[in-house]
């Protein structure tokens, strides 16, 4: 059986798979399909977390995919050209191949010149490959004479010569010539470390923009249907380019020449500089470029629909699932309510309603024991002998979360025990007109998930369930790749552990989903140490955060439920700590959210960092963010990241809820 979710890295996906699995994200459809935003605005910086789908989008916009897709769909030349809004030229900044342009014992100016020259060759080759591709699919609206003229014009412009023989009037010939020039660059780079005074020699040295802006103008002049069309250079993984390389490209962006424009894909904090090669100029937002952030544009409800469409399409395109008419991911993963989970924890099985009410049996449940213990401690009026009568009014055998809410409220001491019994009963009887109903209901609704964590703590080794479509979407933290990986793991486990029972049952058990979520969470955690530069520091920070956050879930008052983030005044941080946080955001280990206001007016805005929710199963914490823990101080973070084990442990303990309780106990 084929796993419909195998293949989740767009870099490794074949063109055919990109076409097969493509779903247009609603809010970005104008940008992707008609390119209208590209036509009317300056170059666009397309930002997004790792795995949010940037590469898939940029690749989809490339001419290679668009031409192939039209070819598959049997679209004829006129229709293709009629619908052609822009021509996408995709180039991915591949880390290893770019890094060889550095540190070879050659002056900076020489390297800059060689890199500029190389970039011109690469993009120019992409232009010609695009023409060849169009010709192959019969989408070029020029006759043989026009074709020859185009090639000759290009030859004249690029190499300042005409082909000597007519058989060389082909795009392949131009591509070969460009390839031989790029080979010369690589040969020089590879040999440079072994030469005494390496000198780069080439028949041509292209200046910045000469081909990138010049060649489209030639193409536009020769092909009628290309008039008024934008050439969009889709630069992917811009974060991999060095600062020096970004300076060169920033200069091109600053001085972009129609019909060319840029759409640059980058992770957050991937832009190392906004400067240009000209010291008096820099890239100014809105004037020189516009930023589109995937997370800002794709709202929560869009995202939910988007991942659902993506998953359903994958199911439809996989034979076994298509044949069994299983193509609704929401149904496959299903949904369980916090109440369902609470019953599972207490009764050991998934059930919508319990078989028989039996208070004598129910009062033996561990969490009810705890309630009795707290009640007897809190009020002397209640004796062990009459405690059953009180407990009866505070528990609900159908919904143990009510018991938990009451346990928390007793601990908080906000209600008297008598009052709490009355409110509970009127709530359970659904007496909505009573003014006490609404506040209780709101309290219950807001804290449902936090109460689950509390309930679980009385039933070891039971662990939190992380299953269901909505939970998977939350765990994915707005990153499509996370969601696909969760599905992939669930299907894979179903194939192996239940012999592929999904085909018969048409759903995957929640336990299996939880197991899968745990595996993906652990895998995500393990990959953190592979992050270049600060992998170990980020991993260490994440470990401490996990310990700190999970300690807040054992607070008997649930004063700050569902802690999954911290906030800090970034202006107080050392450059190295800032770098680590930026890197963690770049790799989507932490996700930066809208800044928070300080406690008093005039305080600086505080930067908010949420732990990627895919890590929730690893630390048994929530996949939402609620509550507020004390602000992290710069020195705390410094130690959590760079301190030794003893220092880290001291700071972690200081920031844990448990230690705060102990401190308070000492104070009073």
């Amino acid at each position, binding site marked *: 059986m084929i*796993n419909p979710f195998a293949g989740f890295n767009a870099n490794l996906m074949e063109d055919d798979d990109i076409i097969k699995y493509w779903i247009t994200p609603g809010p970005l459809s104008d940008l992707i399909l008609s390119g209208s935003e590209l036509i009317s605005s300056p170059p666009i910086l397309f930002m997004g977390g790792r795995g949010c789908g940037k590469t898939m989008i940029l690749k989809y916009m490339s001419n290679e995919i668009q031409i192939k897709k039209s070819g598959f769909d049997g679209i004829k030349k006129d229709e293709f050209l009629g619908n052609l809004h822009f021509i996408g030229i995709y180039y991915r900044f591949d880390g290893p191949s770019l890094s060889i342009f550095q540190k070879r014992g050659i002056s900076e100016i020489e390297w800059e010149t060689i890199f500029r020259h190389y970039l011109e060759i690469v993009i120019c080759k992409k232009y010609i490959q695009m023409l060849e591709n169009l010709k192959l699919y019969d989408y070029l609206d020029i006759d043989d004479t026009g074709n020859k003229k185009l090639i000759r014009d290009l030859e004249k412009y690029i190499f300042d010569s005409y082909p000597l023989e007519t058989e060389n009037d082909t795009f392949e010939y131009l591509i070969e010539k460009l390839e031989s020039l790029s080979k010369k660059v690589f040969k020089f780079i590879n040999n440079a470390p072994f030469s005494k005074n390496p000198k780069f020699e080439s028949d041509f040295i292209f200046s910045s923009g000469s081909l990138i802006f010049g060649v489209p103008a030639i193409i536009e002049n020769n092909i009628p249907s290309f008039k008024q069309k934008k050439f969009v250079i889709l630069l992917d993984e811009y974060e991999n380019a060095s600062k020096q390389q970004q300076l060169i490209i920033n200069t091109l962006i600053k001085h972009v020449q129609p019909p060319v424009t840029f759409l640059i894909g980058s992770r957050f904090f991937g832009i190392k500089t906004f400067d240009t090669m000209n010291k008096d100029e820099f890239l100014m937002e809105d004037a020189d470029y516009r930023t589109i952030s995937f997370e800002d544009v794709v709202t929560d409800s869009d995202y939910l629909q988007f991942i659902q469409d993506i998953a359903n399409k994958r199911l439809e395109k996989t034979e076994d699932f298509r044949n069994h008419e299983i193509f609704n991911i929401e149904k496959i993963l299903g949904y369980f309510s916090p109440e369902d989970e609470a019953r599972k924890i207490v009764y050991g099985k998934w059930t919508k309603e319990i078989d028989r009410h039996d208070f004598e049996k129910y009062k033996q449940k561990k969490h009810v024991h705890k309630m009795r213990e707290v009640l007897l401690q809190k009020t002397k009026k209640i004796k062990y002998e009459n405690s059953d009568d009180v407990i009866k009014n505070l528990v609900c055998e159908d919904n143990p979360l009510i018991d938990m809410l009451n346990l928390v409220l007793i601990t908080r001491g906000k209600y008297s025990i008598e009052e709490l019994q009355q409110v509970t009963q009127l709530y359970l009887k659904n007496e909505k007109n009573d003014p006490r109903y609404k506040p209780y209901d709101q309290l219950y609704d807001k804290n449902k998930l936090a109460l689950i964590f509390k309930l679980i703590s009385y039933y070891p080794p039971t662990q939190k369930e992380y299953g269901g479509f909505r939970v998977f979407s939350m765990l994915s933290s707005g990153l499509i790749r996370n969601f696909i990986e969760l599905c992939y793991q669930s299907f894979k486990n179903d194939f192996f552990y*239940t012999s592929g029972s999904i085909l018969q049952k048409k759903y995957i058990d929640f336990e299996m989903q939880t197991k899968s979520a745990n595996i993906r969470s652990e895998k995500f955690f393990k990959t953190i140490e592979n992050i270049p530069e600060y992998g170990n520091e980020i991993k260490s920070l994440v470990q401490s955060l996990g310990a700190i956050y999970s300690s807040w879930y054992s607070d008997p008052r649930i004063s700050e439920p569902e802690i999954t983030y911290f906030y800090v005044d970034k202006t107080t941080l050392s450059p190295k700590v800032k770098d680590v946080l930026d890197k963690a955001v770049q790799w989507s280990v932490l996700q930066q959210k809208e800044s928070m206001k300080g406690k008093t007016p005039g305080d600086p805005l505080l930067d908010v960092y949420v732990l990627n929710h895919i890590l929730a199963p690893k630390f048994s914490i929530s996949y939402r963010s609620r509550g507020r823990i004390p602000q992290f101080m710069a020195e705390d973070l410094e130690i959590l990241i760079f301190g030794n084990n003893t220092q880290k442990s001291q700071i972690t303990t200081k920031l844990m809820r448990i230690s705060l309780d102990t401190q308070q106990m000492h104070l009073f």
Partner: protein
Amino acid sequence: MIEEEKIFQYFSDINETIWENSISKQDIEDWIKNFKPQKLINVRKLALDLLMGFIYYNEDEIHFLCKHAFSEYKRQKIKEEIKKGLSIKDAEILFHDSVSQIKFIGKNGDSSGYFSYLFRQINGLPLENFISSIEEIRSDTSTLIIVDDFIGTGDTVINFNNSLEKSGVFKKNPKIQVYYLSLIVTESGLTKIQSSNPKCKLIYSELLSQDYKAFSEKSSVLPDYQMEERKHAKIVCKKIGEFLEGEMYSLGYKNSELLIGLHHNIPNNTLPIIWSEKKEWVPIFRRKKKIYYSVDSV
């Protein structure tokens, strides 16, 4: 139990990446149930460890090995011509021209049909180059290549060589060159073939060393087992194997002690506890496509 959970997670991973999604946890549990508890050894653990050491070549890998084996043959031929003084380009041209003079033949029986077909498809060779019996070899055939997926003890090759001698092929065509081309060959098989006929030209993609013998001293299959434990493990497997398939196959054909599986068959050199279906034994890797065959016994 946590350890076992990790093992099953590992199986779940390789089930998708290597075993072609052909095994489920239930299949493994059913297979383990075959083993009766033993005093000296934990049979459940032994079964899981043996399965961890099982090497399976899936369809992609078989395709790769087919390509690699033929490329290796091509490389050797071109090298020979270069030694004779030809340029690389001329040697390549000569090789391509000579392909029509090569005849390929499968090993024996029905099973060779599938593998010969696969080998032909993967390497894009013409159908006319493939023959089904020695009698079809013509006097102008320059080269005969016997294609095989697996050589275990080497008996097949030696027996095939004897059949060729007896058939009079060499009298009819004294210049004919004979090659054996196999995807996988064991070290012991290779040694046996070479000592039986030093002129025998054997080309292969992968060589399995003695470490692949499940209970050998340097066994890579049970690396954490002490010698004594390994001895007990061998006794258990031999006893079951003998019960299932008789003395000759008790630890795989002629005590091969291998744990190897190919996408299209399981060689009988592999321990029968993996593949036997006799006496109500539930195999872990079933014989697909009814093309299971005896590799070494001609």
